[in-house]
């Protein structure tokens, strides 16, 4: 079985840990516990009949002026950039943030995910999409387990590229 290291990055409080918990453990908690450092979760996914062991790095959320340490990306096959649809500051500078992540990781493609879909109406989500200059790959809700599986499946696919 092949193993792939993938990272979730993004501002603090956007729901990276919640997405991982939902994906790996099918759990969701309203309690917010800020992630400290790096936690690695593991889940085996099947992709086109092939099993892949995903080593999912839950990297502590950053602030605007912070960068994820370059060392974290060593050996990473894919990365997901998560933002909070309900918090403007987590997506206003998205384009630049993605460039930084690409530079640090050496990855050509970063999966962009807008989380906390459950907190907005469809119209509001459209408004957010208009503000963001780049295409959003997936809109998810860790709380309601919407598109979570899909997001990680795409991530796994990207890790194989």
């Amino acid at each position, binding site marked *: 079985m092949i193993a792939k290291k993938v990272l979730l990055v993004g501002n603090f409080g956007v729901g990276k840990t919640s997405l991982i918990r939902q994906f790996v453990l099918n759990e969701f908690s309203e309690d917010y516990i800020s992630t400290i450092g790096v936690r690695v979760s593991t889940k085996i996914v099947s992709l086109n009949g092939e099993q892949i062991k995903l080593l999912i790095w839950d990297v502590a959320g950053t602030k605007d002026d912070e960068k994820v*340490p370059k060392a974290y990306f060593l050996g990473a096959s894919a990365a997901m950039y998560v933002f909070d649809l309900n918090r403007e500051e987590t997506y206003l500078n998205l384009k630049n943030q993605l460039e930084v992540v690409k530079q640090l990781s050496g990855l050509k493609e970063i999966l962009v995910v807008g989380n906390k879909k459950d907190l907005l109406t469809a119209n509001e989500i459209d408004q957010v999409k208009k503000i963001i200059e780049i295409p959003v790959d997936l809109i998810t809700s860790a709380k309601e387990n919407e598109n979570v599986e899909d997001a990680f499946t795409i991530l796994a696919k990207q890790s194989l590229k």
Partner: protein
Amino acid sequence: MTPAKIENVFLEVITNQQGIIKNILAGKFAIEEFVVDTSIFETCPFLFGTLELLPEKESFLMEGMVITSKNKEYNTDVELFKDGEEITILLHNRTSVYKVITELNQNRNDLFFMKREISEKNKELAILRKASDKANEEKSRFLAIMSHEVRNPLNTILGYTNMIAEENLSDKVREYVSYLAFSGKNLKVIVDDILDLSRIEAGKLELALEEINVNKIVQSNFINFKNQHTNDFVALEISTSTKIPATLIGDGVRVNQILANLMNNALKFTKEGKVSVQTEIISENEKSAEIRFKITDTGRGMTDEQTAKIFEEYRQTELDDNRVFGGAGLGLSIVKRLVGAMNGSITVASKLNVGTTFYVEIPFKKVLNTVKKPITEVEKSTKKSLQGKRILLADDDLLNQKITSHILNKEEVIITVAKNGLEALEILNVQDFDLAILDINMPEITGDTLIQQKATFKKNNQIPFLALTGNATQEHKENYLKIGFTDVIFKPYKFDELIGKIEGCL
């Protein structure tokens, strides 16, 4: 907080590129989680995919990596060094390592450590606060117990002093007995003050407003000290003023307490020379007169620093010999608060090895036509007759029992005595009474337990019940009234007080 031993917070292991642990070089941290010939990826999954890509012979650092194993979590910094086939991995456990705030580099992990440190400090503070609260509760409990324990013998002393005073005595013995009564009364005030210090601090001190003769108080206080005074090298002097109105309104007991405290201090710290008390009027108008009490000694005096702290609680002048003089160190603190409660002022002037003078200035109201007599006195003319009244007295303390019986017998009361709560209950069920006096702390059944069973008495459940107790706090009184007592008598009590309370209930 720095760990005691450095080896407890790091671990150095060697693996191959496949992550198999080949050797454990040093350190004791998480030793069970790392076993030779097993994969390091089990404990450190973050190393998967990393080891094989490490640059050759170059230190590679990863901070804040979380190791979770056996329900225990470690936050670690990891330093990797690849040399050919071997990879040296140094894991530094930061979980228990705290940084001072100036060293924080503002990343999330440092904030985490700061948060953890604050959390630890808060835990310590919570423990200290708990200990402090407990100590405070213990102090209160101790004071309450001591108050009760002191009040019982004090009641006996004062009671028998009164009884002796009623006998045919020579003038000399009568004088001695009066001093005994005077000192007993002062002791009662001190016990009250120690217990009530917190109330004084809270500004809840209640002063009596009664007619007093200031000069007489000063003289009486002076005579008391003179009679106890045995040091021939120290002269005692008194000076009063005839300009001071014979009757003023104030709290005589408290004024006496202030003077006694200051005199006591003066004598305590004076080995030779003199101690004098002077009283003079410093201002007067139609409604009030301000009196200055000046207590001077030629004792050892104090430095400016000591003088500045003299009114603080539990503070005797902190000289080497302070233990020699004993005392709780509460006296001057209480004096200051008492003077303050009387809208007066107290100042001190002192010079080391020369002496000390305390100036107390208190404004007293003058007597108007409407002024009441001292509130604790019961007017003879308004007294009801207790003759023939049937009273049950339940008290296990034989000496106090005799005193109370003596007082009641003088009033020609028909008295029945019970020596404990159970006996009182049996008597109350068979005999008729006009009133019952129950001591609170009695064997078998306590007074407060007994009163709560009042409704079940076969007789006497409509008569007034008086609580007799050494628990002399307002809280206790309120509680006793709440559970069914008609009134409360605190020990030690004056004869008139007891009779007044009984009359008030009948």
